């Protein structure tokens, strides 16, 4: 154990030292090969130009190599694998895709993912917006925001344990120690095994993600709300608008862009949701989602890389529109720079 800590520290030192040595050394080497000082004017200018051509690539090189190995190559390889069988050697055309859409579990996952996509981003954005507006009006708003923001730091697995404890069901005659069942019992209802109720169990899993992500929406939207010019609200008040009209007709339209950003960010997160489903139900009782199904196929029966890759590609296709929108948006902003 002590050895492990020591080796981790050693790696940090070696890694950081290596990075520094690389950047410093490569820079020095460049100065040595194409010196700009102590040479005649023409050579110096030429060498400076050569340095300017090479140096950016020295700076960006390590990042580029890592991005190539860890993201760009895998994306292409996954696409390629999705057209091959489980071993990745025999070409099967669209066979995996045909299998997927005929598979009951896959169709169930698609359905659940759609449900998640409909509910979670909307709920997070709406709750985040409401809480941002409300907390801006009171003196202890900052503390309230901190507390609502807090689950964002909790891992999905940790949050799953927290909520599994809330959904806990104990048999007839035993004391209900799960908060939800205790509340239901208090109001005269019948305790339930919430996470195994088909269809509805997905909503109990979604509650966990909403609990985590509302703080994110709240912080971003709160900052956007502060940016609204106060005159617009004052004018509405003078014109006799009530608080709901001010909220829906004055505030919301002015932060539309931010709402879209929050919505898409959470949408991407939802498409990748894995930990919550794995730890709560592992896809049982019709609660399967794509990311967990993909993980399942990666290792099921020794692993079927073709089918796993196919499911990954389908997740990727769902993200694609957002990706294109992002790039166009960013290009417009950085345009001239």
């Amino acid at each position, binding site marked *: 154990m002590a050895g492990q800590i020591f080796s981790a520290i050693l790696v940090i030192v070696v890694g950081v030292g290596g990075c520094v040595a690389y950047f410093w050394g490569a820079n020095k080497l460049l100065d040595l090969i194409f010196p700009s000082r102590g040479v005649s004017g023409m050579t110096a200018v030429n060498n400076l130009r050569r340095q300017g051509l090479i140096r950016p690539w020295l*700076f960006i090189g390590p*990042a580029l190599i890592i991005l190539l190995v860890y993201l760009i190559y895998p994306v292409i390889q996954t696409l390629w694998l999705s057209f091959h069988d489980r071993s990745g050697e025999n070409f099967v055309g669209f066979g995996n895709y045909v299998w997927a859409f005929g598979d009951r579990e896959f169709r169930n996952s698609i359905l659940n993912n759609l449900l998640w996509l409909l509910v979670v981003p909307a709920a997070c954005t709406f709750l985040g917006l409401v*809480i941002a507006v409300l907390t801006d009006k009171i003196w202890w708003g900052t503390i309230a925001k901190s507390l609502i923001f807090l689950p964002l730091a909790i*891992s999905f*697995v*940790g949050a799953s344990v*927290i909520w599994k404890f809330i959904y806990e069901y104990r048999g007839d005659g035993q004391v209900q*120690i799960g908060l939800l069942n205790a509340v239901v019992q208090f109001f005269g209802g019948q305790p339930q095994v919430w996470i195994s109720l088909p269809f509805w169990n997905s909503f109990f899993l979604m509650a966990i993600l909403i609990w985590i992500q509302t703080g994110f929406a709240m912080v971003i939207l709160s900052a956007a709300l502060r940016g609204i010019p106060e005159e617009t609200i004052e004018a509405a008040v003078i014109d006799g608008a009530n608080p709901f009209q001010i909220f829906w007709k004055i505030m919301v339209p002015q932060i539309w862009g931010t709402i879209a950003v929050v919505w898409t960010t959470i949408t991407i997160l939802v498409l990748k949701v894995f*930990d919550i489903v794995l730890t709560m139900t592992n896809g049982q009782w019709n609660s399967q989602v794509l990311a967990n199904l993909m993980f399942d196929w990666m290792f099921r029966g020794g692993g079927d890389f073709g089918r796993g890759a196919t499911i990954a590609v389908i997740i990727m296709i769902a993200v694609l529109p957002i990706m294109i929108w992002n790039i166009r*948006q960013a290009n417009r902003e950085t345009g001239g720079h």
Partner: protein
Amino acid sequence: MAQASGKSAGKSFLSRFGVHLAVFFFVALWTIPTLGILVSSLRDKDQIIASGWWNSFSGSVQTEAGRLPPGNTAVERDGKYVLEGNIFEEPGAREVKAFGLRSAAPTEHPAGTVADLGDGVTLQIDPDGSFVHTFPAASDDTRGRRVYYSASTPPRFTTENYRNVLFAEGIGRSFINSLTVTIPATVIPILIAAFAAYALAWMRFPGRALLIAVVIGLLVVPLQMALIPLLQLYNGVALFFGVPSKTYLGIWLAHTGFGLPFAIYLLRSYMAGLPRELMESARIDGASDFEIFIKIVLPLSFPVLASFAIFQFLWVWNDLLVAMVFLGSGTDQLVLTGRLNALLGSRGGDWEILTTSAFVTIIVPLIVFFSLQRYFVRGLLAGSVKGG
């Protein structure tokens, strides 16, 4: 704002009260779940299943069974045979509410009353646990009578659960493993990204715009797209060099790769916002790009470096997927999230283990988060508002 204008004080008071109430409701909804596991992790494990954690301060009532001493040890007094004693091993801590002699009716008789057991045999159990058992004649019973009783237990809080999970359930070891994964996986990408971000922000070279677009595109590529090929790659490399395929080095690099697009994107947009005059005057003074980066840009970028460090730390610490794919499930490699997931399977209903383990898992992120919230929020705003 001119909110109060033209409105009666009463209505304004009511609506303000409503706002406080609504915010209080949301705060309660968002904190109670976490509070639940914190309180439970400190409770005695028998009490966790005996009453809801929200009742943990009022004690719990448990129904238990015990056995009286054998009847033949009764001593003769006033023509009867009497057996006296206390059903508790440590009298004084608990209180009997009721007792009974059949498992079907364990709380038939209230404490302090005399129960008639037939044939002149009686039993009385008082709230403090002392009992008086009388027989009309000498008894030849050698086994002792079975009694049932419900007794209240005062709230018992303990740190034993923590000792237990840290040392017996392997959470302590996993804590070290998580640190081993997280710290290098946070430090390495920062340096690599910082240089790349500077180049993309302030150096001119062909293909720069394309590279920026690629980075922004990679920002949203689902992790799932990378898993299978990287698993193959790691297995291939391991086979070729004869080394294990699941190593700490492997997961450090994987986290570096997955964190890099966001790091470059975040740092680049911050560095691009630094004043141009600063760089130009330094360049006129003869500073090279390397010197400008080290001496001017890097120190000025401290806030955004801190933001990214917090993000990456939280993301790596909380990650389960990457750890499950690239690290083994042995004691020497299982991280906290993985261990918690394993415990959910193996210790399903043992809430004293699960709540305590969960709390150990989330405590580090919570501390980081609370102490550095300012940087975290700043990073969040910079990362999502500007480009999406």
